[in-house]
């Protein structure tokens, strides 16, 4: 079975949590082929500020908040994501005995993306406005042969969400969406999206199971942090992934227990 596991910056930034996660991935990768995708937006923000480049955040009409990636920010983003964070994850996995190999989406042309020329935001006056897109991208292609080759060689690829644009520019892409496209391209059985909450919460209650159509209708009913995970879920299922699990990465054996049904399990049908 092929399992794609994505975890965010809140888990990456905590060494104890990361090491525990790495131990669990070591166990899972004994029987399954595993691809890891990490986030780390908060770490990028922290380092950018230390470098004297405070980050600007914008909000979409649907309440999705994101960094505004200008050229300088894109350079810092690449340094931190493909450098510091990626290597820290790799080291943690190596310590746990996993044959981890770090790559960014740029290496081998792993992630190709289309640069978003325009973004629609809610501006400071509360009005909808189109602005220059900066250096974020929408993933258009995955070099799946490269990933398959690494998996066949026994590696656990650890992917940083950085992509290459049409004009060979470096683009900031969302980690959840990157994981979804990778899972889809690999025809992975399962995509596990680990976060800092127990799963999809609607009206304060954890939803344990969801269909694709319910995931679509839930887009308007979840918090801003979960929207991107639901978009990623929808894309993964549409691309042929059998099951997406959104669960907490803070629990014991987070991947193993998710694969056993903890968190929110989303499939195409009911």
């Amino acid at each position: 079975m092929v399992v794609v596991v994505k975890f965010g910056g809140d888990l990456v930034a905590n060494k104890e949590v990361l090491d525990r996660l790495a131990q669990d991935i070591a166990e899972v990768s004994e029987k399954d082929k595993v691809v890891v995708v990490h986030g780390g937006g908060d770490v990028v923000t922290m380092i950018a500020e230390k470098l004297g480049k405070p980050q600007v955040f914008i909000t979409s009409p649907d309440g999705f908040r994101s960094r505004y990636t200008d050229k300088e920010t894109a350079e810092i983003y690449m340094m931190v994501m493909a450098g510091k964070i990626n290597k820290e994850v790799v080291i943690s996995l190596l310590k746990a005995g996993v044959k981890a190999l770090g790559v960014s989406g740029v290496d081998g042309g792993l992630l190709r993306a289309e640069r978003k020329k325009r973004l629609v935001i809610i501006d400071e006056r509360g009005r909808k406005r189109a602005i220059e897109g900066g250096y974020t991208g929408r993933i258009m292609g995955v070099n799946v042969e490269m990933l398959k080759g690494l998996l066949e060689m026994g590696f656990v690829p650890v992917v940083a969400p950085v992509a290459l644009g049409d004009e060979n520019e470096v683009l900031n892409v969302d980690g959840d969406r990157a994981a979804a496209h990778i899972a889809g391209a690999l025809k992975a059985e399962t995509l596990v999206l680990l976060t800092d909450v127990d799963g999809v919460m609607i009206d304060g209650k954890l939803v344990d199971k969801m269909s694709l159509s319910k995931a679509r209708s839930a887009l308007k009913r979840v918090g801003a942090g979960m929207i991107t995970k639901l978009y990623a879920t929808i894309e993964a299922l549409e691309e042929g992934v059998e099951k997406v699990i959104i669960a907490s990465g803070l629990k014991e054996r987070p991947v193993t227990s998710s694969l056993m049904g903890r968190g929110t399990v989303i499939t195409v049908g009911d």
Partner: protein
Amino acid sequence: MKVRCPDCEGEIKVPDDAIAGEIVSCPDCGQEFEVYFEGEELKLKQAETVKEDWGE
């Protein structure tokens, strides 16, 4: 200010202090338009559909 919808001729209210890039919608047909200026003149063009995938 009121501007005719380029699609259905409906009446779109555009704030007087609208700036380039602002998105307004037609109350009749629901289409969204982006404000732009040709010299001093305010004009509307079809707003692009932008998907929500903005990066980390």
